[in-house]
């Protein structure tokens, strides 16, 4: 296998192993021939025993073959002096061959994600793919499992948030706070998420290891889009896709801001030009009120653990509150398969919130599969100020949920 590897390293390799997909473009670049192009090499190769690699004769014979067609300058007289440079060239050639062979060997043996773990023992994550994608692994811990025996949606969202911060950090885009570049800090600007869309194909369970990849792109002229792709580290199966839209806000005036040129200079190099990982859910989110809401939960207040470093409620916590007013039969028999949230306002420690939910009619234009439900949500303060507006889709957890479905339909009839 070594001989093949060595040989193939020396010639341009046109097809790379399956494991090296677009993420491993860097390694593919080593396929080019070693920069040895002396016609004299072929002469020397014959004159001395070529080093054996694992018992096979070195590739110099094939080098000889390929070099034969090179420009045929008349060989200089073979004195002792003339032979010396050839040795070093040969040595250089052999070294390069060895290095190329080693790399090629590693590539052939390489399982897709193992190097990530070897180099990243604490799962801090690393930038891959030309410096634009950040990738991090998470093991699902026992306390992250919810009532449904799977990682909760809050756990997934925490992972997304964590990779976003770590991405900024490793790209050098982190000022003092979480998520503001140095130039932004100078101008008192912060990123604020306005929209989040998540589609979960499968929830990971205890003991799973998920890989979260994230990247940013432009969103319009003054926004930023951050996408995530969550997959099972072992099987590669895509578990979750998410996309979010961010705008810039002055943290003192609380007004939206255009992206200043200095900040643009900082962040634009990191924008990937790619399609969103999720088709945008363009359906307008309805604002519920007391008359249209079927389920209302009042008196929700943030706990100490809900607050982030700025004493604002962490974005992820809103999801828990939204689910507080989701009807229990749906929560017990179905799982959240998709979610779209629009963030309107922040709230802090002293806020008192209300969570409203309505189960959408299945006959609306938003066709659902059999057994699935759509819900509309609103999270607001007691005075009516809107915090988050949302829409969720639920699919049956298991086939045996048909009984619950009848119950839900009956309730709403």
């Amino acid at each position, binding site marked *: 296998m070594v001989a093949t590897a060595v040989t193939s390293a020396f010639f341009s390799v046109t097809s790379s192993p399956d494991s090296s997909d677009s993420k491993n473009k860097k390694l593919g670049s080593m396929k080019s021939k070693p920069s040895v192009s002396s016609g004299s090499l072929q002469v020397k190769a014959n004159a001395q025993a070529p080093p054996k690699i694992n018992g096979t004769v070195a590739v110099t014979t094939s080098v000889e073959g390929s070099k034969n067609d090179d420009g045929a300058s008349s060989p200089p007289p073979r004195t002792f002096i003339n032979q010396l440079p050839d040795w070093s060239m040969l040595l250089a050639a052999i070294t390069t061959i060895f290095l190329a062979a080693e790399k090629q060997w590693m590539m052939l043996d390489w399982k897709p994600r193992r190097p990530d*773990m070897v180099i990243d*023992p*604490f*799962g*801090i994550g690393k930038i891959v793919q030309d410096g634009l994608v950040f990738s991090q*692994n998470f*093991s699902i*811990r*026992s*306390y992250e*499992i*919810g*009532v449904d*025996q*799977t990682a*909760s949606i*809050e756990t997934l969202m*925490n992972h997304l*948030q*964590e990779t976003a*911060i*770590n991405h900024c950090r490793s790209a050098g885009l982190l000022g003092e706070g*979480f998520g503001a570049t140095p130039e932004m800090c100078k101008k008192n600007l912060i990123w604020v998420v306005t929209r989040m869309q998540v589609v979960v194909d499968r929830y990971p*369970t*205890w*003991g*799973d*290891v998920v890989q979260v990849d994230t990247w940013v792109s432009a969103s319009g002229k003054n926004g930023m889009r951050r996408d995530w792709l969550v997959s099972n*580290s*072992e099987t590669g199966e895509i578990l979750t896709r998410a996309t979010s839209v961010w705008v810039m806000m002055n943290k003192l005036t609380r007004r939206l801001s255009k992206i200043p040129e200095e900040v643009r200079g900082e962040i634009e190099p990191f924008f990937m030009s790619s399609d969103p990982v999720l088709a945008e859910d363009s359906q307008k989110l309805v604002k519920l009120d007391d008359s249209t809401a079927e389920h209302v939960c009042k*008196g929700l207040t943030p*706990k*100490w*653990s809900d*607050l*982030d*470093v700025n*004493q604002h409620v*962490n974005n*992820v916590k809103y999801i*828990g509150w939204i*689910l*507080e007013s989701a009807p229990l039969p749906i*929560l017990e028999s179905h799982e959240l398969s998709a979610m779209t949230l629009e963030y309107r306002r922040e709230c802090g*420690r002293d806020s008192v919130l209300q969570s409203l939910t309505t189960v959408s009619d299945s006959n609306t234009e938003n066709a659902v599969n059999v057994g699935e439900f759509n819900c509309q949500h609103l999270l607001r303060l007691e005075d009516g100020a809107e915090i988050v507006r949302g829409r969720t889709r639920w699919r049956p*957890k*298991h086939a*045996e949920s048909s009984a619950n479905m009848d119950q839900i339909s009956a309730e709403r009839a």
Partner: protein
Amino acid sequence: MLKFPYCNVTDLNQALAQCRFVGLLGPLASRRQSPRAVVSCSPSSSEFSLTPVQAVMSCQQQVGSSLVNRLRLGGLTEDGLSYKEKFIIRGFEVGINKIATIETIANLLQEVGSNHAQSVGFSTDGFGTTPTMRKLHLIWVTARMHIEVYKYPAWRDVIEIETWSQNEGRIGTRRDWILNEVATGEVIGRATSKWVMMNQDTRRMQKVSDDVKEEYLVFCPREPRLAFSEKNNKSLKRIAKLEDPVRYSKLGLKPRRADLDMNQHVNNVTYIGWVLESIPKEIIDTHELQAITLFYRRECQQYDVVDSLTGLELTEDSKTVSVGTNGSATATATTREDDHDCHRFLHLLRLSSDGREISRGRTEWRKKPTR
């Protein structure tokens, strides 16, 4: 030579039902690894249906074959009597002080305890029960938890937690932890907990029988090893029950869906959050939790409503007295206690409906260090 327990999970449904044991949780369906143990099960028709392939492992299977084991930065120590694991503090695990919250610490203690039990081959169904216990429908239940944190880790700090368990008294077992900061090697926290066995059908306590003792004692240190070796340490201090009126309170706390464990019981760590809810803001802003002790008396269910009560603890005349003034939730006149940098509180969690005690506790707070 250590004998490896041969675990036979014959009835998964029963094992799952009604367990308040929070330290060792996990859905059956996903457990892929079973170091040094054999698990066989019959596929159940319940929602916890299990793929037989996933559950059957060979005795000879090496630990570390699965991805999560390779990634896990922990394992049994050389003598096999304790377990160590490293964790990095993640961004969503820090609180308003930019340091790990006490809930994060408590979650990690729970995680590492669970991983320890798993690595010695106990209940691969996730409950840390020995085979005999499962036969007798016995489960572990937390009775007491005491955590002291000397220095809170910050975001991206790496900490190592070592844990071990040993016998305690006639009906209990204890699990101890030591936390240290990997960068400096200094001990940043210690914890100890007491567990008792309960019959999951009758919900009554049961003495630890000799068969069960034999099963797990092989994995315990031979000599008593205590995280808190000092005599009269704080973990053993008696906690008085708060009586009305209390100084601070937060009423009407309801378990959220995220607070429930896989058996629809309120996770023990949630209790810590509830205790903190009735601490006044002035303390939270200026102080950090130095020690917390909780005695668990009753289980809390999904639809229970809980009141969290807090009173000052005065320690003059070496007598612990709980002080009550009017029942308002705001801080009133300062007492002698407030002049010190250390505050001590007594806590009570009780059901709103009938006042039955769920848990009682004690916390100590020290002034936040300048960072």
